[in-house]
């Protein structure tokens, strides 16, 4: 069991349930926030190791949530993985630029998401894109 705590920010109850089954089966602890406003307070309170974020949220866009998380000194280093139905052609570069670790468009391959979570939690000394 990994014991790592993940915060899932997602308003669709069915998606939350599916993600909960999948992530808990991998040994992650899961906390959930279902709108943009409670997302920040939950993140502050729970101090998750990683955040999975939907973009279309009640109370504010997912990009606003990224900005808020990135400007909070306690949360600025927590990796964020965006999982959204939105078009990756426009939204993926925006999300990466805003500081997200990865972007997945729904429906996504579970194995890809799980390996991205592992990668974000245990960054390898691989070459980063510095330029």
């Amino acid at each position: 069991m990994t014991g790592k705590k993940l915060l899932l920010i997602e308003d669709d109850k069915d998606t939350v349930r599916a993600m909960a089954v999948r992530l808990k089966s991998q040994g992650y602890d899961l906390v959930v926030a279902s709108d943009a406003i409670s997302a920040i307070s939950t993140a502050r309170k729970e101090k998750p190791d990683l955040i999975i974020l939907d973009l279309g949220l009640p109370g504010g866009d997912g990009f606003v949530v990224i900005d808020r998380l990135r400007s909070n000194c306690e949360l600025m280093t927590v990796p964020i993985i965006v999982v959204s139905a939105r078009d990756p052609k426009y939204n993926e570069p925006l999300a990466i630029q805003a500081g997200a670790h990865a972007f997945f468009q729904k429906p996504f391959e579970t194995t890809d998401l799980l390996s991205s979570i592992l990668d974000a939690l245990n960054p390898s000394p691989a070459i980063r894109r510095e330029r």
Partner: protein
Amino acid sequence: MNDKLYRKVEEADELNKTLEKRIADRTWELEISNHNLKKEVFERQKAEAEAARSREEQLRLKGEFLSHVSHELRSPLSVIHQFTTILLDGLGGALNGDQRDYLEISLRNVNQLKMMIDDLLEASRAETSKLTVRRSSVSTTDVAAKVVQSFRAAAKEKGIKLKIDSIGELPPIYADPGRISQVLTNLLDNAIKFSPPDSVVTVRMEVFADDPAFVLISVTDCGCGIEPEHAERVFDRLYQVEGALQESRRGLGLGLYICKELIGLHSGAIWVNSKSKRITGTTVHFTVPIFTIHALIAPIVVQDGHLAFSIILLIVEARPTTPWQSEHHHEQMLNKTYQILERCLLPDLDVLLPVQNLANADFFSIVARTDQHGSEVMLSRIRDQLAGNPGLQSAGVRFSMASEVLDIAEIGREGPLDQCIARLAADLKERLRMKITNGAQHDDGKEIIAHRR
């Protein structure tokens, strides 16, 4: 006599006047008709412009609508996909054979639906010229191998053998790897769909004999073939061959249209051979341009003389401290260094040129789209990676490096870009050699970093 002549002149005068009047009348009529024509042309042009504007507006609205619908469809589809895979992975309890089969059928159809949504969006982007490609230097073999690998399971299920034929040495292509994968995925999906069980589907790659500036990629199946009258039209939007196998109904008739648009954006061509007495099955061919340094740099140079990036030439020299034990040993070192350097590059911005051997040293040249600061970051990254590799250190290889900003304005004056890069590379190599020969700054395990603007 005089009277007669006088009368004749008067008559001629009269006639002349009548004629002038008739000409004036006709001219007036013509002017009116000309004016009316001009007005009509103007009205038509106005109507056409209006129609074009309205068509564009319709396309834009349709694009927005499709984008909205696809977004709304994806979320529930994602939930179905997730729970299906949760059940298939046994997270909802053990499954019997039938249950597993049914769930696999569900999953296949969910994936099919996802592809249709993707196709709808892509077709709408193609109509509004919003399809984009991000080109870089790409290995055709790598792209093809990955796509073929992703079809192995589906092919095996139908008893179809998947074959890759790579003819001769294949140079890298200048393409968007994601887009080329998308085209190949579409063609292989069709090929497997239309092939009978126990047949072969082949992906063949070669330098295009008709134009060696392109690589030709062909996907061949053993299906029923395409009649000549359909061969051109299969690339039309929403076109489906009537009476084709039931399987074909699963698509929207957009796949090949999108392929044609994508290959067009790569300046390539796509076509299909039609059925004849000699040919059975279907082969779809497409061409993609081979990568050249010109292709990489040209878009930067043509931006109104205003450069989006500066371009740096980096040279890494690898020199053995003692002679190589064997050619194999040398080869191993080259491969290792090449891999390390590749890891230090950004594939969509930088290019590693073929290794050159000169005076017992190997030179690796990199053309990078970056600035002076970026090249320093790159050089220090390369230095760390090479120094941190125990295999290379124990082999007694000394590395030295140099970098130089390429002056684009000068390139224009000095003739072909490749020649200019070759000349600068030779210059940099010479300077590296001089420093090593002088021995002043070089110790084992350390390398010289030379910069010059």
